[in-house]
């Protein structure tokens, strides 16, 4: 099967005066149709920047992004705009991701109008269909964002992303600013949409429990590189990379008495301006060896689609 999205050696750097910040440092992966892939890591690992590069909301410094065979990075601004009906994104903060002066109807109708997809009565039908899909009362179409609750705003964000029936949807921390009880319903909604629409999704989050609930495959990033990737079950039950192990062990379990063996990492992540040589994790790794300090470990397949970047 051909991958829907293929990212090759993506690099994104930011220049701040004489210093260079490597936000994304050589990332390669594929996403197949119908999958939901989780991209996880802590702040500064580059996951959001990767997604923004794929959608060309920021321009990648190097690398290619193949979508349905064609390289998005080579498209002109106009061609890219045309492609945008196929690649959409749900943004993190529901409070600021909706234009405060637009009614819900205007926000949702805009993508359809921009790409000339439907008009007239069909437009109204599509608006209503989509509202029902995200479980919102049709009466909300004529409301303004400040009249909606957090959960409702996030649903509108999701509705906007799916209304053009895109093939690919990136979700940037869609549940991070939501309360617990709202979070689970949004995840439930996303699951349902996954089944109904067969969407291919990239789910970016630092909330691993949300990722576990909804993703088929998971990729773990650290300091701009992918350090481990594989089927969700594999990554969560048998993490191989020491960073993944530490990350999972740090998450508190909501069951008293079931305490994890906590792997406490030393110190803090190094600055993105000043990346260490060799494996980026070696300064904090409990199993560091001399080789780790010199050579960058490649991402190797250790069986069953489970990839790890570590000198083991």
């Amino acid at each position, binding site marked *: 099967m051909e991958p829907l999205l293929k990212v090759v050696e993506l690099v994104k750097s930011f220049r701040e005066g004489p210093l260079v910040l490597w936000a994304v440092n050589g990332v390669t992966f594929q996403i197949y149709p119908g999958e939901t892939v989780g991209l996880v890591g802590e702040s500064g690992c580059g996951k959001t920047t990767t997604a923004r590069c794929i959608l060309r909301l920021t321009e990648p410094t190097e690398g290619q992004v193949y979508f349905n065979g064609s390289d998005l990075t080579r498209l002109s601004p106009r061609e890219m705009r045309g492609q945008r009906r196929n690649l959409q994104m749900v943004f993190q903060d529901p409070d600021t*991701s909706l*234009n405060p002066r637009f009614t819900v109807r205007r926000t949702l109708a*805009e993508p359809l109008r921009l790409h000339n997809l439907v008009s007239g009565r069909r437009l109204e039908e599509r608006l209503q269909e989509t509202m029902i899909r995200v479980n919102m009362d049709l009466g909300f179409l004529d409301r303004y964002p400040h009249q909606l609750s957090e959960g409702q705003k996030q649903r509108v964000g999701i509705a906007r992303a799916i209304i053009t029936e895109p093939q690919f949807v990136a979700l940037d921390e869609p549940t991070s600013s939501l309360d617990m009880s709202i979070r689970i319903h949004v995840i439930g909604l996303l699951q349902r949409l996954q089944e109904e629409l067969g969407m291919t999704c990239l789910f970016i989050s630092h909330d691993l429990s949300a990722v576990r609930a909804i993703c088929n495959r998971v990729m773990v990033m650290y300091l701009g590189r992918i350090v481990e990737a594989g089927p969700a079950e594999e990554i969560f039950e048998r993490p191989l990379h020491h960073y993944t192990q530490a990350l999972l062990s740090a998450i508190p379990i909501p069951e008293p008495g079931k305490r994890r063996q906590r792997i406490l990492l030393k110190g803090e992540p190094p600055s993105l301006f000043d990346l260490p040589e060799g494996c980026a994790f070696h300064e904090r790794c409990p199993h560091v060896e001399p080789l780790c300090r010199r050579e960058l470990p490649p991402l190797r397949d250790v069986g069953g689609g489970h990839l790890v970047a570590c000198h083991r």
Partner: protein
Amino acid sequence: MLLIGLLIFIAVLLSTTVAPSLVAYGPLQTNPELKLRPPSADHLMGTDNFGRDIVSRVVHGARLDLLIAFSVVAIALGVGSLVGTITGYYGGIVDDVVMRITDVLFAFPSFILAMAITAMLGNTIPNVIIAIAIAYIPYFVRLTRGEILSSRGLGYAEAARCVGNPDWRIMYIHLLPNCLTPSLVQATLCLGWAILDTSGLAFLGLGIRPPTPEWGVLVSEGAQNIISGQWWTSVFPGAVIVFTALGFNLVGDSLRDITAREER
């Protein structure tokens, strides 16, 4: 505060539209025997050197002053926000160049700038409007640019891009409407300043010249009479200028308070 300002505002507006027809005498109607009469029942503000009724001159002058003031603000706001949006959104060299130009314009007090431009261009009403507008444009560029800078990183601007909006739509249909509030407040204040500037220019003999009734012209014409004791020829027009400018300032200040409160 707001109420007083609004009352003045309305009174002035009325005088431009309704009053001219109510006034008994024409603004250019001279009457040499009646020259320099003090205020009386017939002539509430007295008469000037040529026997013209001052009330009528003031009322007709209001029209001109307000026309100029609103035109100035419309141009300054329009051009200023357009330019401010572009520089705020794109940044880079465009931003640097425009900022340096506005720096230069800000270096001059707006009145001096308006004087210089009027002197260069010539004494006609359109030139006065252009001159004062140019002096105000930098304010609107800066205000709009500031708002655009703080909102261009917001989610909905990115979402607009993500959904397929071309840059010009993101700037003018999404961002600008949300960024106009400070500019609108400034616009009301500028209305007041524009009146003062127009009158000031006319008083100095630039821009509008007599016999066209305009408040500054009236003050200038009447100034010479103060020494001889005929105070009404310049004091009334002067008072009208002050009150109108005050009215607009009050409205602008109250607007600023209201919008600041809402934002919190």
